[in-house]
């Protein structure tokens, strides 16, 4: 019998040598006249163990990692194809604590299936959500998503079902579903993992959105920094069309739905939904004032559902298992699971999908195991470049939209970047302003000019020029940006800046009196 070995091919694994391992494995197998079928999968998201390969044995899969090409011969000698003992043997992947503690709904198949095999997708529970949705009236599909409590996973946290209902109720001959795959936040990679590891779940989620809202055309706007996601998604769309899951009369129903890819061009602000719509229309990615909402007046002026990859990829589970199943996970008004991404200076970095409610401390200390450098964790930034820096004293904050908001932070797209005690928080605050200045679309003054002035003022503070006066000035500027900007870029840049000043005043040379006053 031909042995089957699974090796990831997502860009995270490729970045640490997965291709080289696959080549070494194939060549070692040839040399020994041992037939081996190498299946390239997505990543399980245990990146400190990548390249991690898995061998199919009669007792299930056995994982080995992190494997370097030079380890391959020794692994063969140890009988890897039968799951033999070796220093790199990790055992059944599902039993690795990092994976065992997770609740994988959105990422149920990622790292397990061949991302481009329609039949593999079906064999692992795929298409069941769409098939169940087809037996519903569109309004009932919308109701199911409303009842699930699903909220926008891109960071907005707006109830997905309510958005769908608005588009459903809008009168128009043409409506669109737009998937926001412009995952620009540093520390996030969940959208990339889905697109590279289980692209059909996104196709299925978008098709369900199409059925529910009456949209016949979908677009996925993928950032250009993700060429592997673009290639996998394009191939998946082709395969889905061939098998009748996209195109005219999908899955033998009376509904049409097709998907087209659009590629971004390096502008962070295009992750903001109205800027993205402008970009897709072939214009500068300048933010639109709201209202009108995209649900009424979106892409090319038509009613448009704009959802993040993770929101859409959560929908098939909600439809196949029912709203109640999904809603039963989570806490408060944050229902279901959140794919959290552990990144930066991290010992065990990767994708951790879990029900809302886990505390920041559990995530950082317990699950991620602290820093890669072995030094103490000093700060973590949650939610990307627009998210707040949290000190250890706030590690009891549960992962929940409202709990983070109550502590002047946000969960955003679920990225957590860990910093050790060598970090200079004044430098991080400066970077937040600098990033905003570079990426500002230029439409509103608080963001366009405020960010540039912010860099200058923080530079003065760092040089020790009139510290207290300039700290007061930064706070005033942040208030203007927060309340006067048109979108989250200018509006949220104050979160990293003010959290750095508030929680780490010693890095800004602030006197204890000022720190206490804040």
């Amino acid at each position: 019998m031909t042995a089957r070995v699974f090796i990831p091919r997502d860009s995270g694994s490729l970045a640490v040598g997965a291709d080289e391992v696959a080549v070494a494995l194939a060549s070692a197998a040839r040399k020994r006249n041992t037939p081996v079928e190498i299946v390239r999968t997505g990543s399980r998201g245990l990146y400190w163990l990548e390249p991690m390969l898995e061998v199919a044995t009669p007792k299930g899969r056995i994982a080995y990692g992190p494997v370097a090409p030079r380890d391959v011969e020794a692994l063969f000698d140890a009988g890897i194809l039968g799951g033999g003992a070796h220093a790199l043997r990790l055992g059944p992947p599902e039993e690795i604590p990092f994976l065992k503690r997770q609740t994988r709904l959105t990422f149920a198949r990622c790292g397990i299936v061949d991302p481009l095999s329609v039949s593999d997708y079906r064999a692992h529970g795929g298409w069941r959500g769409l098939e169940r949705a087809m037996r519903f009236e569109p309004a009932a599909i919308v109701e199911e998503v409303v009842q699930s409590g699903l909220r926008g996973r891109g960071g907005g946290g707006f109830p997905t079902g309510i958005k769908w209902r608005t588009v459903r109720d809008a009168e128009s001959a043409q409506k669109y579903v737009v998937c926001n795959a412009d995952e620009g936040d540093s520390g996030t990679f969940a959208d990339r993992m889905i697109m590279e590891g289980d692209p059909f779940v996104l196709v299925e989620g978008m098709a369900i959105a199409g059925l529910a809202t009456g949209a016949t055309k979908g677009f996925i706007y993928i950032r250009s920094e993700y060429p592997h996601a673009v290639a996998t998604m394009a191939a998946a769309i082709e395969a889905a069309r061939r098998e009748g899951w996209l195109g005219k009369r999908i899955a033998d129903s009376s509904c049409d739905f097709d998907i087209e890819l659009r590629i971004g061009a390096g502008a962070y602000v295009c992750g903001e939904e109205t800027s993205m719509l402008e970009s897709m229309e072939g214009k500068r990615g300048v933010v639109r004032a709201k209202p009108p909402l995209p649900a009424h007046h979106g892409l090319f002026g038509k009613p448009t559902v704009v959802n993040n990859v993770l929101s859409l990829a959560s929908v098939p589970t909600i439809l196949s298992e029912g709203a109640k199943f999904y809603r039963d996970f989570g806490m408060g008004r944050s229902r279901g699971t959140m794919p959290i991404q552990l990144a930066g200076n991290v010992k065990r970095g990767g994708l951790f999908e879990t029900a809302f409610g886990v505390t920041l401390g559990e995530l950082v200390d317990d699950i991620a195991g602290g820093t890669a450098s072995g030094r103490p964790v000093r700060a973590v930034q949650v939610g990307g470049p627009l998210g707040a820096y949290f000190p250890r004293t706030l590690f009891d904050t549960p992962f929940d939209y409202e709990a983070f908001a109550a502590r002047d932070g946000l969960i955003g797209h679920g990225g957590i970047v860990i910093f050790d005690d060598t970090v200079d928080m004044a430098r991080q605050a400066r970077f937040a302003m600098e990033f905003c200045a570079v990426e500002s679309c230029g439409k509103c003054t608080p963001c366009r000019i405020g960010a540039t002035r912010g860099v200058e003022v923080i530079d003065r503070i760092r040089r020790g020029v009139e510290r207290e006066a300039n700290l007061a000035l930064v706070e005033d500027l942040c208030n203007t940006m927060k309340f006067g900007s048109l979108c989250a870029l200018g509006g949220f840049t104050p979160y990293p800046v003010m959290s750095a000043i508030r929680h780490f005043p010693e890095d800004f040379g602030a006197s204890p009196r000022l720190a206490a006053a804040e």
Partner: protein
Amino acid sequence: MKPWNKERAEEIIQAHRNAEGAALPILHGLQAEFGFISEEAVVMIADALNLTRAEMHGIVTFYHDFRRAPPGRHVLKLCRAEACQAMGGDALAARVRERLRLGWSETTDDRSVTLEPVYCLGLCACAPAAMLDGRPVGRLDRERLDALLDGVQP
């Protein structure tokens, strides 16, 4: 990357001009072919899409991706965002710039390599990260970085 060719550029423009919101697909097509967006191309796209040259200039210059001059034989994109900063990305960036004697978005005199900043490649659990000619590279340290640079500029 092919040298600038007006006829080929026209073909690329025609292939995409009827797409809804054709500007970005055209620009990506031209940059994939020629490595940059020439001034002549800007005029041609503006004509094809019935936009003014000023409007087209505005679109091209809004997006960080579109180069206005040909790149070197290799393009090294180095991540400068927070997750890579947390793993010493700034020090690596300083080293690259020193070794290549380049500022951001500049090309070496021998045309071997162009150094570009990038804000996140989604490789944040394998930081610091870079992308060399479209190939992702993670867990960069001095040694791996030097090997990478030796490969592009012997």
